[in-house]
């Protein structure tokens, strides 16, 4: 595809948007995975919120996290 004499500028714009958005997505996904692992490790040790009854740790909600 011929983008004319300013092809470099056009491609630089699209590259900048791609890089920043991809960075945001990767950061959010990695952060989510790290937190889910931390939460799973805590729950595996039997640690529940003070407000939660034993054996009542919102299994549905946690399963979706």
């Amino acid at each position: 595809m011929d983008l004319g004499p300013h092809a470099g500028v056009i491609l630089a714009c699209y590259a900048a948007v791609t890089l920043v958005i991809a960075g945001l997505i990767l950061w959010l996904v990695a952060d989510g995975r790290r937190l889910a692992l931390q939460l799973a490790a805590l729950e595996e040790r039997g640690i529940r919120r003070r407000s939660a009854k034993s054996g009542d740790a919102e299994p549905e909600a946690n399963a979706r996290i």
Partner: protein
Amino acid sequence: MATLTQRYANPTRFMALSGRLLPWISVAAALTIAWGLVLAFNVPPDYQQGHTVKIMFIHVPCAWLASMVYAVIALSSAGLLVFRHPLAEVSAKTAAPIGAAFTLLALVTGALWGKPTWGTYWVWDARLTSVLILFFLYLGLIALRSSIDDEALAGKLTAVLAIVGIVLLPIIKFSVDWWWTLHQSSTRLTSTIDPVFRAPLWVMALGFLLLFAALHLKAMRNELLRRRVKALTLVAVERSGGAPAPKLAV
């Protein structure tokens, strides 16, 4: 009867609903942006700008989102201060880095577009300068929140700054009308843009809106997870015989 916002004030309920919605919104965003890119790269060159008109299809959605995300932050901040909605603070906190990213992209793509169009990357005109101030305001919100250990206090102070800062949005919007600027006047999508360029712009704008919705939902879910991990860490510290540490940073 509980309103929709009251009904989903419960973080557990929000996690369940957002967990179901997030994949669909993400796929819709990806497909819409892909469709927009196909349209964008198949438009003919503009009679004045040539192929650089293609920059509009990413610059304009980023610029719109820069202001829109700030409005989301200000509304969420009002929700926190006025209604004490438990998710409002989470919404305001998590939208700020996303809004900063879109504002940065609007500035960068605008500067790159400016070189072939205006002959310069940057001028201190009203629109460009007010958007730069918006970017600094985003950074200020993030920095203020990070500088205070007490999360509740940080949330309230940041909310006050966010609400005060909303005065910038009409300045950005009308800067091209109030002052003589190098930046063009507001685009009237139904009259000043040729239909051949209008369709890709609308599609890309919708795609970016869906992208923001997906990013924001994911960031809010992460923040709720972070708070749950923090709460459980405190319980673990108490159980191990340590003193309760309500302000422990996690």
